[in-house]
Each structure stands twice: as C-alpha cells, then as structure tokens.
C-alpha cells in the first residue's frame, strides 16, 4: 500500500506541491516561532544564568534583572554571617545614557562585574579577552549592536560616551542581547559604578555562592528579614525574568498564536489535498477493498501520504528555517534551534498531518467495496 500511496501522491504534481508547500510553511512558521520564543527566553535570563550563583539579593520589588535598584553598601553583610554562605559577588546592572557621535542620546545597559571572581563575563567573545576589560573604562559590546552604537565592523579601540564618561571598546561579543534589544555594555565593576554614578561598595545585585545549595531556602529567609531586601534563588529569578518579558509582554502569546495559525493553515491545505487525493482514487481504493484489502491497509493509503508530506515538508521547512536563523542573526534576533525546539516543531507538524488525515482516513474506511460495480 505504501507504493500505491506514495506514487499516487507524487503523480499529481500540482496537488503534491501545494500540500508540500503547506507543510513546509507550517514547519517554517512553527520552528521560527518556537525558536524565537526560546531565543527570547534565553536572552532575557542569559546574564542571570551566566553569572550563576545560588541566591540573588536585590532591592525589594525588583521585577526583572533589567530594573534593579542600587543596594546600599554593606548589604552583603546581612548574609555573609550565615554559615552556609561561601562568598558574595557584587554585580552592577543598570541603565545609562549613551551619546551617539551624532549627538543623539540612547540607552544602554551597563553590566559591571569583578573579573577576579566567579564565571568569566562576558562570554562568547568574538574579539578581545575578558582580561582586556580590567583597565578603567574598557568595555565589551555585542557585534549586533555596532550599527546602533554608530561603530564600524571592527570597533576595538573606538570610543563611546556613556554616562558622561568616555569608554573604549576593548572586546566584541557575539549573540549576547537582552529581551529589550538595548545594547549590553560589559565592563569591570569599578568603571560600571562610575558610569552609572553608583557609590563605592554599592551594587545592583549581590550574587551569593553557597557551600551547600540545600541551604538556599534558609539563606533566602535570612536575607528577607530585611524590609528593603528581596532574595531569590538563581533559577527562580531567571524564571521570573523570563516570565516577565516573554509571557508578561504578550510576546509569548503572539508567537504562540502565529504558530497555531501556521498549523491551522497547514491542516487546511494538507487536509484538502489528502481529501482530494482520496476522492480522486475512490474507485481504485474501492477496487482494493473488493480485492480484500483490510481497513487498516486502506487507511495506510492516507497514512503514508501524510507521512511523506510531513517528512518532506519538515525537511524543507527545517532547511529554510536554518537560512532564516542566519538572516535573523544579522538583524540581532536570536532563533534557537535546539533539539527541544526541533522536537516541538516536528511533533507539531506530525500532529498537524495526523489531524489533517483524519477526514480522509474516515472516508477511506467507510468506502463500500460494492462501489466498484456501480
């Protein structure tokens, strides 16, 4: 039955190509939307996950990592006495005004860290090394922000005016962007404090490393005794940030709706094609039934066609989405094609083809063998 189904599908090229276009379009749309969704999720919490630690301390009411307020100096002492705390790392994460060469102002997010402690920031360097950021006012920027910052393709050595200070580009990162798409500017913590005009010893966040991660709840409770302080585990803070941007902004719903729309269009096109194929071959299928084909064998006629469409459309759609990924990357948008994203995409397309074939399967099963004599 496989041969009959597949040859019949390919034989009518117009219908075959229209169905293939439907599955390809649906695959492209679903993978692109889910990939973008994952990209937004990853981007929105990337700094939190990269900085790591076990517990983050922040000003009470901080909704997301981008909107933290400066903690007063000495805040870290409130948890340093806890026997489970190994160390406390300060992190500056604050907005600053940048003046373009044209004189216009724009906003950047300054991320200041102590290069002597913790995981290496920034990650994914295209040019330069983390140690290049140790001298005062040396910054790293992302390659996708060069145009926005008015810099050339090779900006190392170029200077910018941020927070009224002249900073120099010492490194270039690749693919590091937040959900807001405003440029990240990595620098050492002292320079960051100067740029955002934050006093010595102050920070936006205190990242707590624990001797035993099991103590996290206890440390959070200890820190939250202070009325001005809020504490979250790293994972909880990352999830809160992801939820704020991706779910709270409506971006997730829009991407989900677009995916659903793609699937609905795919179901209609594939369903229409399979139905039309079944109708066109009704007499031949009834002949097979008369010859003794079982219901399962007849249903497999539709099943094989739907499978071929899903496989070919999925492959073409994936090839196109890989091209789209590179195109979007050049526009500064991150499209993630991880195994999980591909799994969701393929499962959706397979489900779509399965749903699209239900009507035709029912029609084939209901065929009367006696129709061959009519």
């Amino acid at each position, binding site marked *: 039955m496989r*041969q009959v189904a597949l040859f019949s599908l390919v034989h009518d090229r117009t219908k075959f190509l229209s169905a293939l276009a439907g599955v390809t379009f649906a695959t492209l749309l679903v993978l692109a939307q889910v990939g973008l969704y994952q990209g937004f999720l990853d981007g929105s919490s990337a700094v939190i996950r990269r900085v790591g630690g076990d517990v983050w301390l922040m000003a009470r009411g901080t909704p997301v990592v981008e909107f933290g307020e400066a903690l007063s100096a000495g805040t870290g002492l409130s948890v340093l006495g806890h026997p489970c705390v190994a160390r406390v790392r300060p992190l500056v994460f604050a907005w600053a005004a940048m003046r373009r060469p044209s004189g216009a102002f724009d906003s950047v997010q300054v991320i200041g860290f102590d290069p002597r402690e913790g995981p290496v920031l920034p990650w994914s360097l295209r040019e330069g090394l983390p140690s290049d950021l140790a001298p005062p006012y040396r910054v790293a920027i992302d390659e996708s922000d060069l145009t926005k910052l008015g810099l050339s393709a090779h900006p190392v050595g170029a200077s910018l005016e941020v927070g009224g200070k002249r900073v120099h580009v010492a490194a270039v990162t690749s693919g590091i962007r937040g959900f807001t798409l405003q440029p990240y500017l990595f620098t050492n913590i002292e320079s960051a404090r100067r740029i955002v005009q934050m006093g010595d010893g102050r920070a936006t966040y205190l990242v707590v490393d624990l001797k035993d991660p099991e103590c996290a709840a206890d440390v959070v409770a200890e820190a939250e005794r202070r009325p001005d302080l809020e504490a979250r585990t790293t994972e909880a803070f990352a999830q809160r940030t992801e939820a704020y941007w991706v779910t709270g902004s409506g971006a997730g719903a829009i991407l989900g709706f677009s995916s659903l729309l793609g699937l609905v269009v795919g179901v209609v096109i594939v369903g229409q094609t399979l139905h039309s194929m079944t109708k066109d071959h009704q007499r031949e299928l009834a002949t097979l039934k008369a010859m003794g084909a079982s219901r399962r064998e007849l249903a497999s006629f539709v099943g094989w066609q739907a499978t071929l469409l899903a496989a070919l459309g999925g492959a073409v759609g994936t090839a196109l989405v890989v091209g789209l990924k590179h195109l979007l990357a050049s526009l500064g948008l991150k499209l993630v094609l991880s195994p999980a994203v591909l799994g969701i995409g393929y499962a959706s397309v397979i489900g779509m083809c399965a749903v699209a074939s239900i009507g035709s399967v029912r029609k084939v099963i209901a065929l009367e063998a006696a129709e061959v004599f009519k």
Partner: protein
Amino acid sequence: MTGALPPVLRVSDLVKVYRTRSVVTPVLHGISLEIPAGQLTLIMGPSGSGKTTLISLLAGVLRPTSGSVELCGVPISDLPEAAVSRVRRERVGFVFQSYNLFPALTARDNVAVALQMKGHSWPEARSEAARVLERVGLGARLTHRPADLSGGEKQRVAIARALCTRPTLVVGDEVTAALDGHTAFEMIELLRAHVGERTAVLLVTHDRRLERFAERVIEIEDGRVGADRAGEMSREGWKAWS
C-alpha cells in the same frame, strides 16, 4: 444445473432490499443457484434487472438482506466483514469495465499490488507481475502507466491483476463493453484460459456475442432468474469469433 464438479458458489433464496429513510426498493427476490468449477458463466439481463446487485452479492462485496451465499464452501453471508475480505483476497479476482487501475502506477506495479496483498514482498511481487504481464502479451509495456496504454492493454493489465493470484472465482463486469471485437476476443481468451477444474469465471454482460464462449447463461429479469440455460461454448464458437 449443478455440474459434476463441486460448486464454487452456492446461493440459496437470496433476497436484497435497498432501504433509504423513505424508500424501500426490493431488487432480488429469492434467487437460488450454484456455479460449479470449470465453467464460464454469463449473467445477462436488461438494465435494472438486478444483475449488478447479484454479482456484488456473489463476490461478497455486498451483504444480502436474507438468504445465504457460500463461496468455496465458506458461508460468506454469515461472516464478519474482515473475514469476508480475507476470503475475497484468497479466492476472488475482479475485472471491471473501466479497468480501475491506479493511474500513478505502471502496468507492472498495478499487478504487483494484488500480489503484495497476497503476502509477496514488493520486489517479489514486481518480478512475478512482470512474468504475468509477459504471459498476457504486455512484456513491452511493463513500465507504461495506464494513460499510455490502449483500452485493450488496460483491460489486459486488469485481467492480469485479477488472475495473478490464481483465484478460484473471477468476477467480471462488462469486461468487453468498451472494446472492439478483436480486442474483446483476446480478453475472453485470457479469461477462458483461467477456467479449470477448480476455477470458474462469472461475467455480467450485455454482450450477446459472449454466449458462444460460455458454458452457461443466467438471465435475470426483475430480480429473479428468468432463464438458466447452457451457453454455446464450442470449438466452432472460438473459430467463429476469431
């Protein structure tokens, strides 16, 4: 009319009534007959007489309202659909006026489908199909699709598909209606060659020319057997046709 050989088909008091919500249409009124092996039998009659319904019941593709149909001793009218399908697959071959070939498949693959349904692997089925088509004179047309074949060639493919599984009963519906005299003769020749000690051919037809090649002619009139007579099958008949 029971022959010396055991019957391929035995039908008792067959009644078929079509019902819709508002209309009840009795088509067959208590038909009883036997079709023995070793015969080519024609079912004839005017349009609307019930012959298509009768052949559908005899081939097991339609269920009677009452009465029984036995195919090779198996009471197919009492079996569930799946079991009847298996009997048809094992015992019955079909030939139709409009051929009912898959347009996307080559002549060889159209025949191979029937062999695959009988359990052959696809490569085995294709090589056996090629041998069968060569036997019916289509060795040079194996890779042609139905659209590239003449009416006679299409009917040869359809007959090859029906005969390749060596069915006990071959059922045909107006198999010569769309064919010229010479081509029609070739088709009958192929079907006659299948008639043997354990096999029978049953054809519904309006074509009176075929009577010369049948052992038996059953006339259906208003859902009843109007006449059941011997055909004119003889060597002279073959010669006259050719």
